């Protein structure tokens, strides 16, 4: 059974649909990249999957024993966070809030989980440092560690490499790939980097007036990708 099924999904704001009739499924261990032009509704789609806003019509079903809300979310950074006085440890721990329910304080188990996720992301040395003093790549690792505290099964990443320099971007992609391949974490990633998307992902969802969903191989043969390849030049995606 699929972890996530979207059928006949239409979404947008205030009754105005920006995406219509989306159909796709995500299975455990998939690496799905959502690509599309700016304003095509990628972030809206992610917010709808997360339950932050309601779809206009259609349905989103969680399966495979995945509860709604059992998703790790890596949002785009907000202005508030850029000068937020909090340590790395405090932020990573806050990923455990779904596990807490109504309990007001973190348990020893949750603290251990946060510590192990900081270790996985290689940010343990900064645990007591202030978030706002970290580099962009380090901040993304912090938010990734926080998302992993929420779940080990499905991560939703909203442009995780935006604003990072090329080397850090490559490191970030490698880290996400490792999570996907070695630990079997399902990845749903918004990206505007089609080149990287076809390189790392197993499936592509190209949101558009006529959305495309399929495996990377199918996407490479699709008119959407071919027209992109023609405009971008052939050297970038050999």
């Amino acid at each position: 059974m699929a972890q996530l099924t979207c059928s006949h999904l239409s979404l947008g704001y205030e009754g105005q649909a920006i995406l219509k009739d989306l159909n796709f499924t995500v299975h455990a261990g998939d690496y799905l990249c959502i690509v599309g032009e700016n304003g095509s509704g990628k972030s809206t789609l992610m917010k709808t999957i997360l339950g932050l806003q309601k779809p206009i019509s259609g349905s989103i079903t969680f399966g495979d024993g995945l509860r709604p809300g059992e998703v790790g979310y890596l949002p785009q950074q907000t202005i508030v966070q850029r000068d937020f006085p909090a340590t790395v440890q405090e932020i990573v721990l806050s990923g455990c809030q779904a596990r807490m329910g109504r309990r007001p304080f973190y348990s020893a188990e949750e603290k251990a989980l946060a510590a192990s996720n900081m270790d996985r992301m290689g940010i343990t040395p900064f645990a007591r440092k202030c978030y706002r003093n970290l580099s962009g790549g380090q901040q993304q690792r912090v938010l990734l560690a926080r998302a992993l505290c929420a779940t080990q099964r499905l991560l939703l990443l909203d442009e995780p490499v935006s604003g990072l320099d090329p080397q850090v971007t490559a490191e970030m992609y490698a880290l996400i790939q490792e999570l996907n391949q070695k630990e079997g974490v399902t990845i749903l990633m918004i990206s505007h980097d089609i080149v990287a998307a076809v390189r790392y992902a197993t499936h592509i969802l190209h949101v558009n007036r006529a959305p495309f969903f399929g495996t990377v191989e199918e996407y490479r043969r699709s008119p959407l990708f071919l027209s992109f390849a023609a405009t971008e030049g052939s050297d970038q995606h050999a």
Partner: protein
Amino acid sequence: MLDTLSMYLQFPFVQYALIVGVLIALCSSLLGVTLVLKRFSFIGDGLSHVAFGAMAIAGVLHINNEMIFVLPATILCAILLLRTGKHAKTQGDAAIAMLSVGALAIGYMLLNLFSTSSNISGDVCSSLFGSTSILTLNTLEVWLSVGLSVAVVAIFLLFYNKIFAVTFDEDFARASGTQVEAYNLLIAIVIAVIIVLAMNLVGSLLISALIIFPAMSAMRVFRSFKSVTLFSAVLSVVCSVLGILISILGSTPVGSTIVAVDLVGFLICCLISFIRSRASA
């Protein structure tokens, strides 16, 4: 000077003022960090004016214990402001400005039209700048203040981790099933309670200072949410006690003296942060 001070400290009204002052300072600083970081400072400012208007209405209606009327009215407006701030895409801040200035104007007009007091401008001045009300508290008001303060501190401690999560990243919190709207509402209600409490200490025009200064000062110097919160609480209490004592000794208005001490505290924190950045550069 110490003799004068110990003499004053014998008086119950001075003791009450100090107890209530410490509690109010503690409460107002706790949520200051959240307010500043969530860009909610405007709500604090708007509510303080609303509280002034409510107080005027309470006076006109001859309600003996004003807090009974002012507290629910302010809480209601807090909920209202939170909603307009969220939903109005444009002109949201203008709506808040209208509400707060409107409340201020109506309040002053009502006081002028219906006041039984012979000294209207004195009354208005004291509710705007809290010049004497802290020194004229009766026992009921003291206990009410103590009770509300304890409730505020208890709520803050109990929901500390949730408040952190909601402040740092609303979307993430909502995605992991946290009732963000409920916590925002809780924060707004607690702010309303704090503002009504703090009216006694510094008056309605200066309340924002009590909420914002300690948080801004602590954010200059400290790096973790916990240490920022703790330090702003300590700083706020110290500044308020100093302010009250100075005002007693120097016969200066209590509210503005406390705010002046808060300002000095902020400048000292700025200096520390400046020196530190020079040293590390």
